């Protein structure tokens, strides 16, 4: 199978990169367009299986629950121990900009 059929379009790569907050160099875009296409093609083989009349499996297990009982929490000190910045007991992060 030729690579040109397998590739993702550069538009698709850019879209996925933006959703994942990745800045790609031009050569990375090219490489990923091919690699992601190959991954999708590989996974796409599953679509060849005949599933007529088969209920989709959500999970092998069902109804794993915990009771509504409080468990120990972390202290703010521990919770914030690895925070790059804090103010009082809050995580302090760069200002949030609206997406354009």
């Amino acid at each position, binding site marked *: 199978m030729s690579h040109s059929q397998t590739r993702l379009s550069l538009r698709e790569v850019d*879209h996925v990169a933006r*959703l994942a*907050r990745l800045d790609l160099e031009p050569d990375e875009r090219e490489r990923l367009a091919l690699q992601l296409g190959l991954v999708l093609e590989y996974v796409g083989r599953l679509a060849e299986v005949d599933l007529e009349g088969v209920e989709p499996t*959500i*999970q092998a*297990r*069902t*109804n*794993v*629950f*915990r*009771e*509504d*009982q*409080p*468990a*120990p*929490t*972390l*202290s*703010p000190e521990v*919770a*914030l121990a690895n925070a790059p910045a804090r*103010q*009082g*007991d*809050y*995580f*302090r*992060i*760069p*200002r*949030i*900009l*609206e*997406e*354009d």
Partner: protein
Amino acid sequence: MSAPEAASMAFETVIGLEVHAELATRTKLFCGCPNRYGAPPNSAVCPVCLGLPGVLPVPNRRAVELLILAGRALGCEIAGVSKFDRKNYFYPDMPKNFQTSQYDRPLAEHGALEFEVGSRVHRVRIHRIHLEEDAGKSVHVAEGRQEVAGRLGDSDFTLVDYNRAGVPLLEIVSEPDLRAPDEAAAYLETLRDLLRWLEVSDCKMEEGSLRCDANVSLRPVGSLALGTKVEIKNMNSFRSVSSALAYEVVRQRELLEKGDRVLQETRTWDEERGVTVSMRGKEHAHDYRYFPEPDLAALVVDRQWLDRVDASIPELPAARARRYRQDPGLTPAQASWLTSSRSQADFFEAAGATLEVVTWMANELSRLARESGLEITQGRLLPKALSEVLALVEQGTISNKGGRELLEHLFREGGEPAELVQSLGLAQISGEEALQEEVLAVLREHPQAVEEFRSGKDKALNVLVGQLMKRTRGRANPQVARRLLEQAALQDEEG
């Protein structure tokens, strides 16, 4: 359509609501951190709700059960098999970079809620109810000032508190069956009352445990197709729901009448300025890439579980209101007021469920509760004590005024009504013997009024009754006093 054509056209408003309610569980949805409003920042967190690597979420059984309860009370079908999904987005209030929610297999679907506006009954279909986790809380801070959820562009930095991250939420999505802003507000109030009644959520809009977004569109009357819808966010009170929707309806109508188009977008309600404002760019960035949550088992609700929940559904407010209208014959307004809260309705029943009881609750008790910033049922007055007070008034042991005084004391301090009648000196003097001496004293001291009464001026008797009440500091039974004074005044004349 052309502008003149549109201008002459009548439009119909179409509204659907998305309501989020925080569930009244003790702990969060996927971890044992306390679900508590107002705790110090980042004090109710653990590796699971902070999204640290390698943790395993486990659903809270109670949260699932509360959703089923709400779903059944709203007439929904409960899915036999349901699941959780990841909704992926980057925002610092979600430390995992995804929100665990339900996408294509919600727990509940196809219900309805009925409510009245004026005397008209409305029925709004419920599209779906699903379970999801709440996000943390961000405080956007601008240089030199602090502002909660203000305009983001102004912020210099953001402070994040993850106590709310992972708190269980119901999302209740209605069908676009609402036709006016006041209908939408009435639907929301009825829904709130129901969720509180079921103890599913405390539904405090001011604390954010009840939140509401709306989809609003207009279409020419008679048209079945829906117009372009606009999503309205940031309506933080019942009043702002009504005003934001009313504003938006006018805004859209004016656009359409000019022959312009309504843009499909998300707008935020600016309470201060009383307008909706476009949140540009937000909507087309929404590509959530939902996929089934691999760390959580499927939810299977079998017949047995459903039966157990059904058996636990209390008599619902609408049914109670109907019952009260038949017996003891409350007015629709009284019945709906009483059943706006379960504790209030239960109080009414425990106090004897009579017309007298509702009158005293609606007047005296409501006033006392308002003055102390409490609910009627939060004072120290027990329902049994209310029925005792009413019996004391009925028997004439205390006057109406004495009853009000006693009730006030009971509401603020509590106590035994019969004992308080003695210790507060509220007992009416109804015994003729006990009053006789006072009656004669009044006649002696007011010969002129007696004379006037004897010569046919009936009004003079009022003066004598007033004097007697004064002597007994209001404790004389006025009917008995009147009869005794009348008899004595006339007898004296004969004698």
